[in-house]
């Protein structure tokens, strides 16, 4: 069906409105981008220029080299964040897909109770168990000869705590996706004599790869932007993450951080995940509401 044409007298006001909305969306983004190109290294630039004269990428170089006062490079911070995000996503999806399959395809006694337990945990934000997690992880000291550390004060501890929050979310989302896979294929497989295990590994798993990728990415995103737990648990600069460093660059204690550095850092944290998000956008939004309806 071809689209109707809009009369010019209507087109113009609509265009104005849509352009104004686009302007409000773009203001903060353009602001950061042009700040990041500002060559002056001022803590608080007194004036704003959309395209700063003498625009340079110095701020990005500074961020790559030494973004904070600690002797840590951007790569090290990013690697820490990557370990958290990748580890949490991988672990949660690997374990979660099995539980999601059980909830999606089996009728069994106790299903309702277990689902309810899952939803209760899902409902609770990660921060609502922060007190016991802190206390418990703090009481565990790992001692492996050369390697000695306190579990709370390590990326391992933060990762463990993160998995506790990510797992119910992963199970729930994966279940939402698995529910949309038509059952005819499985029924055909069953008639051919496949048991539940064969059905899972040979039929469901291959079909679920795209949704696993999406849910895995959401878990990754959670780890990539994780701040609360690492900010509370970690004290050793070698373990610090991107999110913690970015937080350190704003607010009253950051008077010596040039805004160009902050802006470059913000863009470098945001861009990788934003690009992937854009690519997967169609699947993600569908999935989020999918999970919330039932």
């Amino acid at each position, binding site marked *: 069906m071809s*689209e*109707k044409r*809009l009369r010019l007298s209507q087109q113009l006001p609509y*265009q104005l409105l*849509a352009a104004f*909305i*686009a302007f409000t*969306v*773009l*203001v*903060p983004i353009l602001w950061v981008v042009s700040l990041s190109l500002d060559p002056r290294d001022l803590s608080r*630039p*007194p004036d*704003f220029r959309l395209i700063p004269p003498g625009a340079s990428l110095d701020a990005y170089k500074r961020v790559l080299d030494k973004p904070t006062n600690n002797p840590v490079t951007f790569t090290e911070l990013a690697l820490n964040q990557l370990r958290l995000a990748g580890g949490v996503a991988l672990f949660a999806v690997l*374990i979660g897909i*099995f*539980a999601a399959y*059980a909830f999606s395809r*089996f*009728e*069994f006694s*106790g299903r309702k109770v*277990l689902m309810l337990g899952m939803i209760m*945990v899902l*409902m609770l*934000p990660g*921060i*609502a*168990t*922060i*007190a016991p997690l*802190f*206390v*418990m992880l703090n009481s565990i000291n790992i001692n492996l000869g050369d390697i000695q550390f306190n579990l709370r004060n390590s990326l391992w501890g933060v990762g*463990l*705590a993160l*998995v*506790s929050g990510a*797992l*119910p979310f992963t199970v729930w989302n994966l279940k939402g996706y698995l529910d949309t896979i038509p059952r005819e294929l499985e029924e055909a497989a069953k008639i051919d004599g496949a048991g*539940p*295990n064969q059905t899972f590994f040979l039929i469901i798993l291959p079909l679920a790869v795209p949704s696993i990728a999406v849910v895995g990415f959401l878990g990754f*995103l959670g780890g990539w*932007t994780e*701040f*609360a737990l690492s900010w*509370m648990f970690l004290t050793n600069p070698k373990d610090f993450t991107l999110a913690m460093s970015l937080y350190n*660059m*704003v*607010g009253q204690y950051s008077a010596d951080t040039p*805004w160009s550095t902050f802006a470059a850092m*913000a863009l470098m*944290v*945001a861009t990788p*995940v934003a690009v992937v*998000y*854009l690519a997967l956008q169609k699947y993600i*939004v569908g999935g989020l*509401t999918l999970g*919330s309806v039932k």
Partner: protein
Amino acid sequence: MATVSGNLPRPLPEAPTGFRLWWQRNTNTRAAYLYLIPAFAVMAIITFYPMGYQVWMSFTDYGVKSLNPNSKTYQAPNVVGVQNYSDIFKGDLAKKVQNFDFWKLLTFNLVWTFTNVPVHVVLGVLIAVLLNTQGLWFKRAYRAIYILPIVIPTLVVATVWKNLFDPQSGGINKLLATGFSPLIRAGQGMGLFQNVDLDTFFRIRWFDQIDAPFFADAKLPIASFWIVVAVAVVVGLVLIRLRVPYSTPICLALGALVLGYGIIALEMPLSYYAMLIANIWLGWPFMTIVATGALQSIPLDLYEAASIDGASPRQQFMAITVPLLRPAVIPAAMLGVITTFNLFNFVYMMSAGGPIRKTEIMVTTAYTLVRGNQLYGVAAAFCVIIFFVLLGLTLLTNGITRGTERYDV
């Protein structure tokens, strides 16, 4: 399932009884539990056990000294009964945690949520309708731009907006100064705004100013807000029950009035408005995407039929678009309610609950109780309370969602 057996008759084995009977009949249950074991084993250790531990902690005076059993100053936590809970509810906690007021906190958290989400929904739907206009130019470009707030991590959004609201060099103050300075100057030429000093007037201290910008001296008690809420709910239910004409717009207006009362009673500082603006920027695009999906599934014939029957565009919007959007938008709105209620990263990074805890939400309070005050027992009790508040909120939102899930044309 092994219900279909081979077609050759075989001698029947001895019929199993008791547990073996149950075991053989429930192949499904067995397989299901096999698949559930990994997830629930992990959750038992890192989720359910800490939750149980938290309940025990909430009845103790667990503090810094109880952290390390090997230290000289170690003090085993004592069970203190419901002391922590009563301290939180009655306000005695304010002696240890400055400006702590549970009822104010809860009220703020709810008013914060319910002033954000409706704006997201209304803006989101209207913009989706605008984007869905037949024959609009540059649709794809607009869609690509409008999605940006969703794809940028909240953490980055919050830090950027925090700096945008900087009193000296922030973009917002600069924008306001550029936009309004000429107006004020013109007014001063005519004898108005004589006490305005333009050099300092637009150095608004968004996150530090304690006094409310509006009705700062109304001094309404928080309890009166809840009385107003109760009255409004009763009035609304009666109106709907009696099928009074225009009951929906009246109820919406009532809701807005109640929220306005809440804003005055809570003496909302400027940091609330700053966060509101930033969170609206952050929140509406998601609703637009959800609404766009739903809009595109509405058959165009409906509008054609309506316009043949002589319905105006406004009537078409109210009678076709709104009811058909409802099943998609309401669940998204309810998801928004829970998300906004628990918007930790955003609030912690923008206002950090300040000034004087006026914009603290429940999760940021729990966080500072652990990290700043190191009152682990109190924090545990507080988190148990959060659990019940969220349980109530979830039941409410689920009820609303289920009530609006289907719409029969």
